């Protein structure tokens, strides 16, 4: 198939000859229809779920408009995060600098909403016009008595991952600020869980049933005060390696807090996540409660899951997601329901991630870094895929080709994490793969003929 020459080192088929060395973590080729975003996007998605802070986007209007409430990160209390705040820079601001405007906007915002903290996101242009955002933040912080945190997220200064790092830097500045009363020795911070469709609530409930105290969740349904005492937790449990592992490492360095990397997606991964936390605390009763929890949860979903497996066995899936860690979990979960993963890729995976993917996947699986729609559509066609898992830009592509789809990104509407999430996931996939609409699609009709869809059959 047609692949840009320079892209050949970012595509690999397992089982093919030659050593496997993915050339990744590099900027997209100019002129490619990349599915990737920017530094700002990375920072924005990580910090956005903090519901009692204001999030001010410093730049022209677009960056604030496009990120206004785009991720279904739910809050059990305040909803400040779902509003869109911008300095809406104009030509004159760009010429003469926008520090005064930023100051005025921050003061207005803080006076109006009385938030517990403010985040100020620098967009591309701020890096060029040279506003001293940090100085403005410091000044407002002193005047208003709340943390005002600059987030260096100029879009061009790297990839989405650099945005995660900038967000982690801002979060870390909040830690160590509040007293550590009433924190159990069996306590954790949940990191890299953003409460999309209420998933953090499910995960939190598991830990609570195990007898583990959750000091903070970063950043799903988060509150500033919890983050300020998060250094009191005994352990950091990090999901979504791409976004939050930086923060976990900072905790380790500064507070000596160890961390575990987990995923909450799929029975194997979520069970292992809970067990690894239980093992860490070396408390027999806690382990017993965990075993009981896992057993009960699995018993509750297993029979139904087997039914889906029967109907999905042998169906072929392609996965294209942001972070590689999510890809691992998806490969395992799809296997659990009988599906075969024939293509897997990510926007931001690193060399080790791709090596791990290679070792997990069956022979003949295409592994790809930072793909584009043309490539993707070719893979989907060549591999005769039944289902694509991806994000907003991939959905219509799959549908146009007559292929089932599952959004595992911002736009998932039902929780897919945890045990109950696994069942939701299986049901969503089943409903899409077996939708009768595919029988109306001419390209796929020949593929499904043996299922008896011909007129009069």
């Amino acid at each position, binding site marked *: 198939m047609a692949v840009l020459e320079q892209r050949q080192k970012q595509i690999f088929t397992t089982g093919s000859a030659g050593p496997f060395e993915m050339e990744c973590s590099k900027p997209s*080729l100019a*002129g490619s229809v990349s599915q990737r*975003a920017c530094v700002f*996007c990375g920072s924005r998605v990580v910090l956005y779920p903090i519901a009692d802070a204001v999030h001010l986007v410093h730049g022209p209007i677009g960056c604030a408009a496009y990120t206004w409430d785009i991720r279904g990160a739910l809050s059990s209390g305040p909803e400040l995060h779902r509003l869109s*705040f911008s300095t809406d820079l104009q030509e004159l601001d*760009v010429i003469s600098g926008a520090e005064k405007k930023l100051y005025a906007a921050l003061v207005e915002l803080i006076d109006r909403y009385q938030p517990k903290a403010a985040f100020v996101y620098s967009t591309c242009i701020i890096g060029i016009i040279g506003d001293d955002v940090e100085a403005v933040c410091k000044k407002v912080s002193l005047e208003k008595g709340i943390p005002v945190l600059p987030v260096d997220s100029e879009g061009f200064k790297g990839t989405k991952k650099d945005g995660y790092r900038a967000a982690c830097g801002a979060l870390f500045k909040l830690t160590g600020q509040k007293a550590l009363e009433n924190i159990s020795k069996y306590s954790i911070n949940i990191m890299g869980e953003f409460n999309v469709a209420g998933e953090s609530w499910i995960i939190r409930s598991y830990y609570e049933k195990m007898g583990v105290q959750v000091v903070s969740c970063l950043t799903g349904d988060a509150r500033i005060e919890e983050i300020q005492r998060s250094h009191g937790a005994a352990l950091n449990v990090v999901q979504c390696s791409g976004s939050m592992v930086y923060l976990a490492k900072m905790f380790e360095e500064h507070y000596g807090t160890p961390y575990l990397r987990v995923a909450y997606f799929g029975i194997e991964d979520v069970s292992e996540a809970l067990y690894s936390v239980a093992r860490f605390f070396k408390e027999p009763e806690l382990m017993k409660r965990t075993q009981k929890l896992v057993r009960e949860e699995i018993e509750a979903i297993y029979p139904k899951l087997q039914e889906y497996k029967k109907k999905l066995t042998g169906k072929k899936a392609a996965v294209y997601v942001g972070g590689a860690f999510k890809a691992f979990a998806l490969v395992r979960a799809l296997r659990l329901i009988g599906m075969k993963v024939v293509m897997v890729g990510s926007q931001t995976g690193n060399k080790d991630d791709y090596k791990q993917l290679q070792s997990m996947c069956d022979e003949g699986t295409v592994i790809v870094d930072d793909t584009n729609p043309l490539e993707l559509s070719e893979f989907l066609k060549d591999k005769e895929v039944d289902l694509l898992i991806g994000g907003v*830009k991939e959905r219509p592509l799959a549908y*146009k080709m007559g292929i089932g789809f599952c959004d595992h990104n911002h736009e998932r509407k039902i929780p897919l994490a945890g045990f109950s999430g696994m069942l939701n996931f299986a049901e969503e996939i089943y409903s899409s793969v077996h939708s009768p609409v595919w029988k109306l699609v001419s390209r796929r009709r020949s593929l499904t003929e043996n299922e008896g869809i011909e007129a009069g059959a």
Partner: protein
Amino acid sequence: MLLRHTPKEIKEREALTVNPAKTCQPIGAMYAALGIHNCLPQSHGSQGCCAYHRSTLTRHYKEPVMAATSSFTEGSSVFGGQANLLEAIGNIFTIYKPDVIAVHTTCLSETIGDDIPQIVAKAKEEGKIPDGKYVIHCNTPSYVGSHVTGFANMTRGMVNYFSEKTGVGKNQINVIPGWVEPADMREIKRLAKELGIKIVLFPDTSDVLDTPQTGKYRMFPKGGVTIPELKSTGDSKATVALGALASGPAAEALDSKCKVKCHILDLPIGLQATDNFINTLRIAAGVNVPDSITEERGRMVDIITDMQQYFYHKKVALVGDPDQLISLTQFLTELDMKPISIVTGTSGKAFEARIRKILKDTVPDVNVRAGGDMFLLHQWIKNEPVDLIIGNTYCKYIAKDEDIPFVRFGFPIEDRIGHSIFPTVGYQGGMRLLEKILDVFMDRQDRDATDTTIELQM
């Protein structure tokens, strides 16, 4: 109460925008460029811009949206984006093979000061642009104007690059539709056909962003105005530009470049604006209006007649883009409704003046703001409640919190379908708007009726 954070008391804000009623120029340029056949829009800036625009357009249209990016890095921010754009042009023509690359700038590349025509000339020199292929551009700094101006700039770019006057006149009319939906563009073409007039519609996103499900993915769908058509616009008899803000600049450019007389009209939304559009087309082409169109109009008037009691003096809050709001305000006035609060995010005093003029007899104390935001609109609604909100998807929060009937109209609409399939322009479009407005009023009446007062006939 999602918007519990909105206080009733209004304080003028100097520096802060809350819940914007606009977005930035480049997305408009991208949308316009998608209305050229076999064209790949090229976003000259960071990757995120392109990703955000594509995502937003995808959410609105539920269609694959193709555009490439110059993928700026720290290096490009220091040394300029020339190398990126040259590489992009080469790569795009090699692998994606469009007929046209339509470059738009971003706040980043504008501030750095990249000179696009100079870079394109260099690409040509280096043999990166194959014969018969084109690279066009427009400047769309995000800190000027709004998404609507971006659309206008790219549309004007089409004229700048393509329109030619051969001296041999063509019996055709140019129609610039403004930022409307694919369905609207389709409807404008149908009306012209019904009138027996050959038109060149540009841009034209029908059959690009409303494509049928075929089981195949086509990077460049069959729709869009073609290059020969765009070139021929210089020989047309006249140009009819719909919407002063979105279409005016291209029409004026065509007038000064090729001396094609232009008529800048309001978007044909509602009865009077559609009458005006049909009449202008008729005169420009020298044809008669067929009975079929007169009858369509008659059906629309019939609905208004039948349902007048439901429209009478209903108060409305409107938010959207200037061209749309002007026509909509006019239309609502025709229906005896009262638009009392009107906000657009796009700046420009002409808008406020025009709205006040339309409403001078019916709503002399209208709240109107160009360069406002949805927060302001919400505050106005809190102070002066309305019976109906018309605006994009983001209005749903206000509608829910204040418990007000809501009709989705404008950009973006991310939570319903229909906007890209059914027109709101022309008489057919007017009838659809009437149906939508009546539906929400009557659903509300039914919902609020008691078991005793619920009525069967309405």
